[in-house]
């Protein structure tokens, strides 16, 4: 398939497939993977996909990312699928599940919200799907976010 021509296989690690196109960098940000990380990361953007038209793919070599961490991806890529790879083989395959609550991932857009003050506080949002759109509601001030990708820390 096309994508295998684009990115090479990895020996061991996590493959995140079916990411909404253009969101791969945000996925890495949610997972806390950046220049300071030790893992080798390969990424493909705008890969042709039968299901999605276009999609992004991220491969993180040498790291098995926990399901809890991966589920946060559902905030911006609700259709993402995860492949855990060992010896070039898929050992486990699953879809991300939208978590009920996310902490420390989204910033509240309400500038009068206590989470945007100097208090020792971690922003917390209740997350739900409304008509296929991810909606996050600030646990503290109640502000609702519908474009969550704009408010990722």
């Amino acid at each position, binding site marked *: 398939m096309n994508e295998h021509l684009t990115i090479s296989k990895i020996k061991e690690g996590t493959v995140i497939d079916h990411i909404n196109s253009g969101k791969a960098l945000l996925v890495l940000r949610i997972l806390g993977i950046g220049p300071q990380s030790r893992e080798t990361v390969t990424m493909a953007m705008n890969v042709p996909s039968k299901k999605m038209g276009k999609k992004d793919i991220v491969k993180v070599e040498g790291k098995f990312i926990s399901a809890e961490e991966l589920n946060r991806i559902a905030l911006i890529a609700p259709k993402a699928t995860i492949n855990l790879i060992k010896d070039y083989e898929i050992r486990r395959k699953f879809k991300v599940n939208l978590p009920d609550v996310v902490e420390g991932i989204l910033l509240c857009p309400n500038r*009068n919200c206590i989470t945007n*003050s100097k*208090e*020792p506080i971690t922003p917390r949002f209740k997350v739900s799907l409304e008509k296929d759109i991810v909606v996050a509601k600030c646990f*503290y*001030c109640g502000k609702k976010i519908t474009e969550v990708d704009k408010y990722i820390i």
Partner: protein
Amino acid sequence: MMSRFRHLISIEDLSKDDIVYILEKAEEFEPVARGEKKSRILEGKLLANLFFEPSTRTRMSFEAAMKRLGGDVINMTAQEASSIVKGETLADTIRVVSKYADAIVLRHPLEGAARFAAENSEVPLINAGDGAGQHPTQTLLDLYTIKKESRLDGLKIALVGDLKYSRTVHSLIKALTLFNAKIYLVSPESLQLPEEFLEELNGDISIASLDEVIEEVDVLYVTRIQKERFPDEEEYRKVAGSYNITAKMLEKAKDDLIIMHPLPRVDEIHVSVDSTKHAKYFQQAFYGVPVRMAILSEVIL
């Protein structure tokens, strides 16, 4: 018996059953609130009033409720708070004060402050207003006033004035939908109820003009146009005074119509209304005391 709730942060945390329970309890405390009957049920208990924003009325009402039940009160005024704000976090202030008192009443300018404070408090915390957020004791006393002076079942109510910024109105609407009230929204266009708020509600709610509904409603709930919630002076002046209730406007009203206002009023209700049988806003202020007694005894005992 276990308390129904430990903290009171938002009216949304209460079920209809909880609300009915508090209102019934308030009724039992009414003779004590009037000074006709003595009670010492909170003797030896200490309430801390922490007001980071000025509000004499709410603070005094809590103080009256606590003292009428034999308890005592320590206060931190907005002026004292401003010196704290510079150095200490709210989290630390709450941790310290919850060592002094048996319950805390908090008013704070930031939304969500009360929920955060409750997470840092060792004692029950009651939200007395957090910015444009929640003010649940006001909502409960409003409901109590409606119950006592009008009816909660089959109610038709018009909410008049600032429906955009008024936290009182937002909380009240949420609670009234639990009682299947028919709600009319009467406001200038720039102060309409926020769309996203309306979407969340399941209720019989419609936008109307005062003229259309004055003959029909049981309650006219008037709010102050709050200057401090406006981004600029000009915007404020444009709408201020655009809703002024006079005795003449009430000629077509139902005989048992009641008029409520969270007070302080500016000029939303003309003084000519005060002497009519419809005026209930001062009685409403009194009802704050038995309702707060019910809440205090619920969380402290």
